[in-house]
């Protein structure tokens, strides 16, 4: 056994190593910390699983209606912690641990939860010297608090779902006074005289402190040439979670890695620390631009989630008792009766703040999504146009260039909705301004686009050029809105414009001011079809430690250390709020961000940053967006074509085909690359890219409906297969294909020179229809699909109805009133259902005035019926139903439309070879009640 196991591990590590070295060009790893170079991570990781020094003081237990508090004591240093437990509505438990009496308050992350989560009553089932058993309400779920050592177990029936501190890795570095010449004697005196208990504890601490100070850099830490002064000393926290029966964990973006998270034994933990990583490498746990500290655990029985609400630098270790075991090894276990349950152990380590964990108990994947959505909100509902195709480049040089690219799309009959301007559009990278020579008449340019019913995005980054001739800088200075350095002066760093200040986006007044800068009379040259892109909001500081802000910089009274991972969220939030305000709250915003945190989904779209024109980067775009979707952020995409380097024509074509089926669909290219607008590669390739983009536009009604659903329920738009097939273990590690909603399965070609792909079609007893040929395939099989350069393998689930607009025009707005074609894909039981969602596509009237059409479409008993899902909604459309295709049908003798009490015959055609019934021009309005009867 062991041999097999080691052999497997060895093989794995060889694979890892070769991946590392085969990378054509790569990140300068030396710029970024490993766990060993991050003092708190090193300290915490040195602590091995074992007996926890923490004990629950059961006599301190207090239970209000929905809140339980209890003190914990560390027997080594006698520091008291306060544990709070909440039972939250929707099958969640919140666990908070803080110091009982911290020297000063510890940071708790604001603005992530949409509200204080509603609670439900907790009740004590039993209590003795060893612990307390609490009821978590229905479904026989219990929470067991063990006292000595302290641990928490959440159980359902006889099964443990999840345990906390079961490996004894709860560690809480309490605030302490510095015991050397730099300590502040006044403070110390006061504190020590307050509380005898505390004094005693302090004594213990001091010993720790004295001992550690020299070795571990508790009070100061240097990385490369940057010194982090740590006036608060060590403040890190850690907690372990055990997940019995779980072999698959997902989430914690952003990492350029597979969908299924790997164990981190023998390597670095997954790191969450928003960083501007130049030329990032694939398949490793290094931190990238954003962080969402949410992990999902899944097995055939249950899906759960852990949300670790902490915005400081965070590392996540994952280990598993089955990692490295081959299928044969597992079988051997079974045969030999070695019945060790598979288990995944997870450990979270953060540099500061408190432990604030939300345990989402599912049990279904959709439950976890709605649970997480109830905490942090859902994906913002984007303007319909933003689901179209975006054309970006660093940089479109001038207005003339913009105009000619715009015309290029029309000349080649390729649809697009947004053209983008990168940093060169502004006057010397002073955002909110325009280069006086190249973009002298921005309104003229925007007006020209508006006449084509198209839109523009201009970049606005959060670093502000220090220049007394720059209005934005002067106002921020006069309002004292800049982040401060440790000495209280304005923090300055190097970024695109040169020396730059960084507005303190954590300050609500600052955000309000920033938002006001998007008003049409403030942002000169802006119009209602101009939208925004926030880049570099990690924040990127070229000359800062790890290319970001110094941790001892100050946001009001809080150190940057505490808020780092949420800075980017605030930037996007303030920008989106500004965009909404400029229209008086009527119009929806569209803001793209690079950095993000839990809750960022509420403010717009995200892309996977500066990728490269390499096949592996095309492949990784799928798991990267899937991981984001799982933790709430659906509006995700990767730069089509790859940002750095020049793609081969084949790669570019394949990337268009893949991007057309991912939520955010934007081509982008680095300044140093050659032009790559889709018509520059010969007519055949133009046709291929045009076709991919057209497929996207035809499906816009479906995408839009999925985003409405995501906005309402938190369901991801782009999903791993296991979300809809949670019991099918074959789906658990698939990340080269994905579902769009429940009804489309895409397996884009991501291999160079591919002649075929093998797609797994899930669902025993289900069928899937090739959307291009309508050929029917059975579910629960690996299907080999021969491909050519024009192939985009996509399948529609039998049992679904997808509305399309097959009249593709030059932008989504042009298609507003176009008729729909319904693609009814029958299940083996001749059943199908779907939805149709319509609104004005850009305003909040769907919400504020219920101006929307939401219909349920059902095919059952040979009748296709449209019924109203929102009877009190009012919206009228001139769109109608021009065609209905019923896949997997048999030939009827007659088809009748029932509308307004009248029956009219409908002409039809039947293709017996593919069993496709086409109903010709039934013609009813898309918002009407109707039935089509097949007789």
């Amino acid at each position, binding site marked *: 056994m062991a041999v097999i196991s080691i052999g497997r591990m060895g093989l794995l590590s060889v694979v890892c190593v070769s991946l590392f070295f085969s990378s054509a060009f790569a990140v300068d790893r030396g710029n970024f910390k490993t766990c060993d170079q991050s003092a708190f991570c090193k300290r915490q990781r040195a602590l091995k699983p074992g007996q926890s020094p923490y004990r629950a003081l059961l006599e301190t237990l207090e239970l209000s209606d929905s809140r339980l508090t209890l003190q914990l004591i560390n027997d080594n240093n006698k520091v008291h912690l306060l544990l709070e437990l909440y039972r939250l509505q929707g099958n969640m438990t919140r666990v908070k641990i803080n110091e009982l009496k911290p020297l000063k308050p510890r940071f708790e992350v604001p603005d992530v939860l949409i509200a204080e989560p509603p609670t439900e009553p907790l009740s004590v089932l039993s209590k003795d010297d060893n612990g307390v058993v609490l009821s978590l309400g229905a479904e026989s779920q219990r929470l067991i608090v063990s006292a000595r050592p302290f641990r928490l177990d959440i159980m359902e029936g006889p099964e443990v779902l999840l345990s906390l501190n079961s490996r004894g890795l709860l560690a809480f570095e309490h605030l302490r006074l510095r015991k050397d010449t730099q300590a502040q004697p006044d403070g110390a005196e006061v504190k020590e005289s307050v509380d005898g208990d505390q004094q005693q504890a302090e004594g213990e601490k001091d010993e720790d402190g004295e001992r550690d100070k020299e070795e571990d850099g508790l009070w100061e830490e240097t990385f490369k040439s940057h010194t982090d002064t740590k006036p608060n000393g060590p403040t890190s926290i850690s907690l372990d979670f055990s997940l019995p029966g779980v072999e698959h964990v997902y989430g914690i973006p952003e990492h350029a890695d597979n969908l299924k998270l790997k164990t981190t034994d023998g390597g670095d933990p997954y790191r969450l620390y928003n960083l501007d990583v130049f030329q990032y490498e694939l398949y490793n746990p290094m931190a990238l631009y954003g962080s969402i500290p949410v992990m999902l655990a899944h097995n055939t029985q249950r899906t759960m989630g852990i949300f670790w609400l902490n915005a400081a630098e965070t590392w996540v270790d994952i280990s598993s008792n089955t990692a490295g075991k081959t299928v044969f090894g597992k079988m051997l276990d079974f045969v030999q009766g070695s019945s060790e349950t598979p288990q995944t152990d997870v450990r979270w380590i953060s540099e500061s703040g408190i432990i604030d964990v939300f345990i989402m108990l599912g049990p279904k994947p959709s439950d976890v999504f709605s649970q997480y959505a109830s905490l942090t909100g859902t994906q913002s509902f984007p303007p319909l146009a933003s689901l179209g195709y975006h054309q970006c480049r660093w940089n479109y040089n001038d207005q003339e260039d913009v105009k000619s690219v715009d015309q290029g799309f029309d000349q080649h009959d390729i649809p697009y909705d947004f053209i983008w301007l990168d940093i060169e559009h502004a006057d010397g990278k002073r955002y909110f301004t325009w280069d006086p020579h190249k973009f002298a008449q921005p309104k003229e340019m925007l007006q020209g686009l508006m006449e084509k019913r198209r839109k523009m995005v201009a970049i606005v980054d959060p670093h502000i050029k220090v220049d007394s001739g720059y209005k934005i800088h002067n106002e921020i200075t006069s309002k004292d809105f800049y982040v401060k350095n440790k000495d209280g002066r304005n923090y300055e760093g190097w970024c695109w414009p040169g020396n730059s200040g960084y507005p303190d986006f954590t300050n609500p007044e600052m955000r309000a001011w920033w938002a006001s800068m998007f008003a049409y009379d403030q942002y000169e040259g802006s119009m209602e079809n101009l939208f925004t892109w926030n880049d570099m909001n990690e924040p990127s500081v070229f000359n800062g430690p790890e290319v970001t802000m110094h941790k001892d910089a100050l946001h009001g009274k809080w150190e940057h250390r505490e808020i780092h991972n949420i800075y980017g969220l605030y930037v996007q939030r303030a920008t989106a709020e500004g965009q909404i305000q400029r229209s008086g709250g009527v119009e929806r915003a569209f803001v793209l961000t690079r950095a993000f945190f839990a809750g960022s989904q509420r403010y717009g779209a995200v892309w996977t940053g500066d990728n490269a024109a390499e096949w592996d980067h095309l492949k990784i775009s799928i798991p990267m967006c899937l991981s984001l979707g799982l933790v709430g952020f659906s509006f995700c995409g990767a730069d089509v074509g790859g940002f750095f380097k020049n793609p081969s024509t084949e790669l570019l074509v394949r990337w268009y085909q893949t991007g057309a089926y991912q939520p955010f669909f934007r081509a982008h290219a680095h300044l140093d690359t050659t032009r790559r607008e889709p018509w520059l590669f010969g007519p055949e390739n133009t046709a291929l890219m045009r076709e991919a983009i057209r497929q996207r536009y035809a499906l816009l009604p479906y995408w839009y409906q999925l985003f409405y659903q995501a906005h309402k329920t938190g369901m991801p738009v782009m999903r791993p297969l296991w979300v809809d097939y949670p019991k099918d273990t074959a789906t658990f590690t698939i990340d080269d294909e994905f579902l769009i909603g429940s009804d489309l399965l895409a397996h884009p070609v991501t291999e160079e020179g591919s002649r075929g792909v093998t797609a797994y079609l899930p669902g025993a007893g289900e069928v899937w229809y090739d959307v291009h040929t309508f050929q029917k395939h059975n579910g629960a099989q690996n299907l080999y699909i021969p491909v050519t350069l024009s192939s985009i393998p996509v399948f529609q689930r039998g049992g679904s109805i997808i509305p399309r607009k097959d009249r593709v025009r*030059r932008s989504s707005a042009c298609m507003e009133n176009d008729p729909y074609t319904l693609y009814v894909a029958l299940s083996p039981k001749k059943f199908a259902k779907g939805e149709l969602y319509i609104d004005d596509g850009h305003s909040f009237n769907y919400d504020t005035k219920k101006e929307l059409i939401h219909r349920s479409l059902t095919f059952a008993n040979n009748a296709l019926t449209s019924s109203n899902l929102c009877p009190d909604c009012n919206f009228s459309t001139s769109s109608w139903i021009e065609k209905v295709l019923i896949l997997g049908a048999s030939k009827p003798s007659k088809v009748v439309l029932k509308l307004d009490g009248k029956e009219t015959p409908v002409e039809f055609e039947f293709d017996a070879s593919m069993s496709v019934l086409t109903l010709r021009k039934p013609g009813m309005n898309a918002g009407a009640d109707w039935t089509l009867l097949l007789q």
Partner: protein
Amino acid sequence: MTCLHLLLTLVFAVSFGTPVEIQRPRGVPLTKKQFYEENKPFTCLDGSRTIPFDRVNDDYCDCKDGSDEPGTAACPNGSFHCTNAGYRPMFIPSSRINDGICDCCDTTDEYNSGAKCENTCKELGRKEREVLQKMAEVTKEGFLLKQQLIEEAKKGQQEKQGKVTEMQDNKKQLEEKVEALRTVKETAEQPEKEAKERHLKAWEEQKAAIRLEKDKAKMAEAFLELDDNADGFVSVSELQSHAELDPDADGTLSDTEAQGLMGGAEQVDTSTFESVWTNIKDKYHSESLPEEPAPVETPPDEVKEPVVDNDSEPYPEDDVSEEEDDDDDDEDDYHEDDDKAAPTNKTPEKSHEDEEAMPTYDAETQTLIDAAQKARDDFEEAEKALREMDDQIRNIEKELSFDFGPDAEFTYLYSQCYELTTSEYIYRLCPFNRVSQKPKYGGSETNLGSWGSWSGPENNKYLVMKYEHGTGCWQGPNRSTTVKLTCGKETVVTSTSEPSRCEYLMEFTTPAVCQEPDNTDLPAHGHEEL
């Protein structure tokens, strides 16, 4: 049944006040009218199927080729014909019908979208005619200029061709002359060499004799000096008065040492002094003459001095990169100088050893030398002339080898440069040579590419020039420039841009690309169908 009523539509077109009514389905061009016969079944233009006529333009796509919906957006691959009376008729993709954007100037594409389109055909037609007229004028004048250019180029080419032929002839003559002169030179150099050698040998002998005599005189003088008591003998003690002769350099010349120098004798007379003189002459200081400074050894640098001098001389044609050649030349020159100059005290060693210069050549030798020198000079001059001729031929041949267009109309651009100043840079296009960019406010010039090739479309490659292999870009390719040529009266760079990093685009007008105006197709209002 449908929310839109999209039945057969009639086109009411108005052309210059004459109302014409032609019935055909919306979006059908006149040329295809016959396929759309009212009330007769319609067969898709690809022949794929036949449908009742009321399904033409009924806003549902029945034909795979889109031909049943020329006037609606129903077919993804259809096209719509706008008559655009007063302007040019055109086809637009069906997807632009009723999309809210005015595409046809006669507004016929937006008949049901609510878009407020204005008929701009007349205005467009007028403008187009103006532009066309202007263009026609430009083309006309440009074409005339082009004819001139062709004429001049042909003339120039002929001239050059003739010149080359002439020069080839001259060259041949020159080559013969060079050969002849080489023979003359070599013939003259042989007797010169012999005469010089003779002269040198005679002088060497003479020098040896003089040296011997001088030594003897010195010895006699020394004897007299040493013979203090003038007894005709030099004794040991007399010798000892010359401490500089001390062989072990301890400052004193002891008895034994002196005796040693005297060859063991106590005293020597003038005849036996000869052997003593041999022992002491190197160290002996004359009492009468001031002490001669020890001969200073020539520092090695001095040898190089002439080279240094030569270096500072301008070599007009030579590049710095040809340093090695320079050195060779220097040496050659040096030797030549040696030969040419009268062999006086050129060599430092000689000048030290010999008080007297070599006597001038005798008349006979000098005559031979002069004759040889003249032969050399003549030869070199001829050779130089040949080289120059070669260069000239090469240059003209290079020029003639360029592809200056089918009628050599681009010839006039050769060795010219054209500049365009933008807000930041001065761009410079030297056709068939290179493109460069120089910051307006100081800074060094950047090469944006050297002449590569004509690279226009297949039907006329002379519309685009490609300049390649310019200065490399940081982390990028070498700079290159595409120059697009359009017809114009003037030869000017009209714009520059950098569509991709380090890939420049230049627009350049020249009469050389003006096409012959088509007199039968004068821009009138002749395009519309009605």
